[in-house]
């Protein structure tokens, strides 16, 4: 059997037999990335809407910054946040390094600009006339933003998918911030790196397959919501 075949077979075997370590790693990956995405929505949606609707000097620079942030290299984020969280670092007193919380923090920094940028684009594509009409009909500014966000919810689901996809698949920040500690901060991507280093290629492929399946299932559910109203 080819190495890929072996890996896929191994993935099925691990999932079906309910290998506790693999399940724990999978569950932790989901928890960390789902939490980071959720938090990035709480920051990114208001920020993106604000940037889309307000006009102020330096707005162009702010928008460019957000767009640059959408491509932040995870290793760079990992390195900076790690240095902040070191015992010697500015936030060392929190003693968060090598914990799932630290990984969530890193992933939040990666996902927040993605969600902000895509929200910005989604809100901006709602026609200006619609906004003016609402204000003309006596809606308050907050009411208007709420309606706009509802109107833009389909493209915003794309923001959720992009944010989640960005963080569940990244390895650089998770490795540095979590330390790939067995049973505590080992996630699918870091475990894949470890097993490759150990020469356990079939297990590494199995973990990759599980990661792909999870990402697919999450995106499939989100796409389903996004697409069904279009019919």
């Amino acid at each position: 059997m080819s190495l890929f075949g072996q890996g896929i077979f191994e993935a099925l075997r691990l999932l079906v037999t309910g290998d506790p370590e693999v399940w724990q790693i999978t569950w932790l990956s989901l928890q960390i990335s789902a939490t980071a995405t959720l938090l990035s929505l709480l920051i990114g949606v208001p920020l993106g809407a604000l940037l889309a609707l307000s006009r102020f000097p330096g707005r162009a620079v702010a928008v460019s910054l957000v767009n640059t942030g959408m491509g932040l290299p995870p290793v760079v984020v990992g390195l900076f946040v790690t240095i902040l969280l070191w015992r010697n670092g500015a936030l060392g007193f929190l003693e968060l390094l090598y914990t799932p919380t630290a990984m969530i923090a890193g992933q939040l920094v990666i996902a927040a600009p993605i969600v902000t940028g895509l929200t910005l684009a989604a809100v901006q594509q709602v026609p200006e006339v619609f906004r003016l009409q609402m204000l003309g009909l006596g809606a308050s500014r907050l009411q208007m933003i709420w309606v706009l966000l509802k109107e833009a919810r389909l493209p915003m689901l794309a923001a959720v998918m992009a944010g989640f996809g960005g963080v569940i698949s990244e390895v650089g920040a998770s490795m540095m911030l979590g330390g790939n500690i067995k049973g505590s901060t080992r996630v699918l991507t870091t475990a894949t790196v470890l097993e490759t280093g150990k020469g356990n290629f079939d297990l590494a492929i199995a973990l990759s397959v599980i990661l792909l399946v999870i990402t697919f299932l999450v995106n499939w559910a989100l796409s389903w919501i996004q697409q069904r109203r279009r019919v």
Partner: protein
Amino acid sequence: MMARLLAGLWLAVSVGVPVAPAPALAQSNVVILSTTTSTQDSGLLDVLVPMFEKKSGLTVKTISVGTGQALALAARGEADVTLAHAPSVEKKYVEEGKMFNRRLVMYNDFVIIGPADDPAKIKGLPKAVDALKRIAESQSRFVSRGDKSGTHVLEQGLWKQAGIEPKGAWYIESGQGMGQTLGIANDRRAYALTDRGTYLAFQKRVDLPILVEKDRPLLNIYSVMEVNPANGPRVNVAGGKAFAEFVLAPETQAVIKDFGADKYCQPLFVPIAGKKDEDL
């Protein structure tokens, strides 16, 4: 509504993330061990760490990186105890007072592997240094870790002894772990210096035989060191000491002695607690 259900599900997954233990109070229960990749990749720590945690009631956070980084982290007070394998670098840190109580734990050995047709004609040479000289003279491809790991430090020491500064198209620096480096060496039909444990683990996928072995400079000696609390705030001195004592204890040394015998048909490490560098 399906959408609400999904949003609820997402929330449910998000909550209940195992968050960090409460700061300050809990810290004395956590020991940060900075160590080299080989101790983790070989699986040895997967055996030793749970043993220690059970015995001491402490939690170990193993940060497995190259020896250079493991020592640098400890010197900044970012770890409590270090298990490394680069005696020359370790002694420097001990002299500077960053680390103390350096004690030998175990050893295994390095080997030089290469293509079976052996273009540099090094097979069976008793001295590793002579082998490297011939590789350089014949400009045969050699893959180096190039990452300041214990293996890389030893390799650099050998080049220095040979009076050669390796550079040129034949000298490839991978910048990666031992496993990946073996893969590159295999692909390029090149020579490489590797620890025997990783080589055994990759035997099935690496078609390069051992050409030089059993030379004294090829000994791969692992030591444990405690971290000077002056290096930074929050160094867990007692925890680091407890782990160091644990790896040197007779029961642990007995476990190290047998480790790997079932999987590779030969033990991967020889325990040497109590010995000194000069004894080997």
